[in-house]
């Protein structure tokens, strides 16, 4: 009997542990942040916008209530904004499921360097986030936009990007990696708010890529074709549509190129960097206006040739635009040089921005057209 007493006491003590601990986290006390946005106010303060999932209204509420909620917070630092926002919310902000962050254009111009720390230091916030720049607008404006296809607007953008061929949405990690490569320009995807005058509604559209300078301030944008050409070189997209014109106004044709691959060869001749970019892929004709029978190998070869010259010209223009306007290496050429000529890189990396801008870049495109679709010539053009 006596020996059972300590055991009984232990059992009772252990029971008290079952009630849970200090970190009791009820689902009912949490508010899941799905996206956040940052804008710069006129007085230099930050405006943090959070898009939250409103719990358990989606089906039962009769569809009248929005399934999400937007709240704002103001402060000098992100954590101050968060506190400001929390004071308006009855549930604890939980950032573990946030996948999208939007920066307003003014914020991006002023520099995003100081914003990143709060994103990566908080154990609750994930490295797997996608950061976007709202071109010509504010994050607030963008996040208020309702998007009919998805119950949560933030998901819409990620899905669009997936469909157009960008492989993974990880621009947060990309920007962290790029900032640590000398002379390399960090980039972020850009989205714009479009007012459609014909349909009289506002909607969102993926614009392209925002380019940042070495001080992490917005330097400019690449539009959709320019950014997809860039992604071809960096190996982050899996398809690109190419429109090319036949000479003498005979019409245009469009090819979708998939299985994209790019190789960068670097060389340093007398201090000047020469870069050769080799592009390969396989194309499918999506549309062809001229009355030309593509079932004839000669014609197909001509098309292939025209398309390849077109790719070379466009790609060269994109690279030249970046060299002249932004002067930062967004094509990972520096890393290629580091791998291929480490000694030269050690010498050049300190002023790589200049060397990159002066580099002579040649593009070689060797895309093959593999299929022509269901018909040789357009059947209505005899």
């Amino acid at each position, binding site marked *: 009997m006596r020996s059972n007493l300590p055991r009984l006491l232990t059992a009772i003590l252990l029971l008290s542990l079952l009630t849970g601990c200090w*970190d009791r986290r009820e689902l009912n006390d949490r508010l899941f942040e799905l996206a956040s946005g940052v804008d710069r106010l006129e007085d230099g303060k930050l405006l943090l916008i959070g898009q939250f999932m409103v719990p358990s209204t989606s089906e039962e509420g009769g569809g009248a209530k929005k399934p999400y909620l937007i709240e704002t917070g103001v402060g000098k630092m992100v954590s101050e904004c968060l506190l400001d926002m929390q004071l308006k919310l009855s549930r604890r902000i939980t950032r573990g499921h946030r996948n999208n962050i939007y920066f307003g254009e003014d914020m991006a111009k002023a520099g995003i360097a100081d914003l990143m720390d709060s994103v990566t230091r908080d*154990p609750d916030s*994930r490295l*797997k986030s996608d950061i976007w720049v709202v071109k010509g607008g504010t994050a607030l404006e963008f996040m208020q936009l309702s998007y009919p296809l998805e119950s949560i607007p933030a998901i819409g953008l990620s899905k669009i990007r997936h469909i157009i061929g960008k492989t993974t949405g990880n621009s947060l*990690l990309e920007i962290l990696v790029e900032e640590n490569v000398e002379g390399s320009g960090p980039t972020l995807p850009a989205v714009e708010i479009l007012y459609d005058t014909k349909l009289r509604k506002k909607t969102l559209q993926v614009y392209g890529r925002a380019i940042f300078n070495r001080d992490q301030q917005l330097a400019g944008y690449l539009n959709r074709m320019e950014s997809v050409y860039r992604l071809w070189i960096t190996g982050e997209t899996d398809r690109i549509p190419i429109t090319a014109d036949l000479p003498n106004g005979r019409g245009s044709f469009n090819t979708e190129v998939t299985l994209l691959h790019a190789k960068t060869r670097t060389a340093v001749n007398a201090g000047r960097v020469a870069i050769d970019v080799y592009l390969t892929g396989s194309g499918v004709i999506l549309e062809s206006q001229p009355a030309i029978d593509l079932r004839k190998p000669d014609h197909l070869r001509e098309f292939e040739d025209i398309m390849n010259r077109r790719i070379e010209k466009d790609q060269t223009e994109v690279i030249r635009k970046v060299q002249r306007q932004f002067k930062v290496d967004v094509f990972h050429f520096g890393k290629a040089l*580091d*791998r291929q000529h480490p000694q030269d890189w050690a010498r050049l990396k300190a002023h790589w921005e200049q060397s990159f801008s002066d580099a002579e870049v040649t593009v070689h495109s060797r895309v093959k057209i593999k299929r022509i679709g269901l018909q040789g010539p357009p059947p209505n053009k005899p």
Partner: protein
Amino acid sequence: MKLTNYQLFWLLFSMEAGMTIMLTLGPTFQAARQGAPLAMLLAGAVSLLATYIAAKLSLLYPEDTFVEYVPKIIGQWLGKTLVFVYLLLWIAVGGIVLREYADFVHMALFDKTPLWAIILFMLIVILYAVHGGIHIVARCSEIIGPIVVFNIILFRIFSLKDLHLDRLLPLLPSDGWMPVLSGSAPAASYMSESVMIVMLIAFIGNKKKTLSSGLWGVGFAAIVLLNVIIDTMMMLGSTVPAMLQYPVYSISQYISVMEFVQNLDIFLVVGMSFTVFVKIGLYLFMTSYGTAQLFGIRNWRRVLWAVSMLVLAVALFPRNADETQVVFPLFWKNIVFPIFLFAVPFLLWMIGSARKRMKRPVRPHA
């Protein structure tokens, strides 16, 4: 209390893998940058060497523990003092590992729970196992080890699509071999904790394959570490992980497969808790059993309580995460690693085998 060679393998693997994966990747990247995989390879080789020396030393006196044979090699007073220093070191590292673990769990899961509660409850669980004897911890490790391996394979598969092969090159940084050498030290100093087998070999039943299963345990842990560091580098590059507190934890949060296999960090926390259980279990057993032998106390389980209190005190002592994760590892790397994990066992081995050799020709005459 008997151990099998198979148990020794899993014991060494589980105690090596957990904390090392968590805490040494950052410092390795900091020093070696692009050469981090090479540094890790080197660290693996160094720790294998340390294990080899320690195992050879113990096999000179296969039935004795470290506490018993060191006085036989270098004499009573010197030997006992040396053993005492080792016991103190093991208590210190046990406490610090417990604290490092608690800091991590505190950050990842229980940020409102007081630190002492995490430390105390973990310690009670470990104490419960160790109280039964070292073979209980060993049996646990037979289950824990494979679970850890399973977790690592899971991460390997889920992270495949996020790997950038080009981030791996160049393998050797442009500044040469020096950064690689200094980068290998943090991981090597952690992995060389396998020197603790000097206390374990005495309990192993069949000592024929002990050396090879000990080396395999450490070697397997080294392979896993190499895999993890290559993974990290292909995902995050070589500069970002140098700035992160727990690079692997960040990766586990980053992995996302088809939008629904996400937030795998919990696997990591569970794996961590398991390996820390084995590691601290080993240290608690070694120190209390060793102390009992050193002072001639018959019941080592009585000593266990005192040692646990000491470990608890050590775990509660550091003021902040820097002291446990930067200052102590630095002390371990610069002082304990070269002297107590390498030089001393090596000298003991040399002296011990010289003594044995000198004795042998004497025997036939006598």
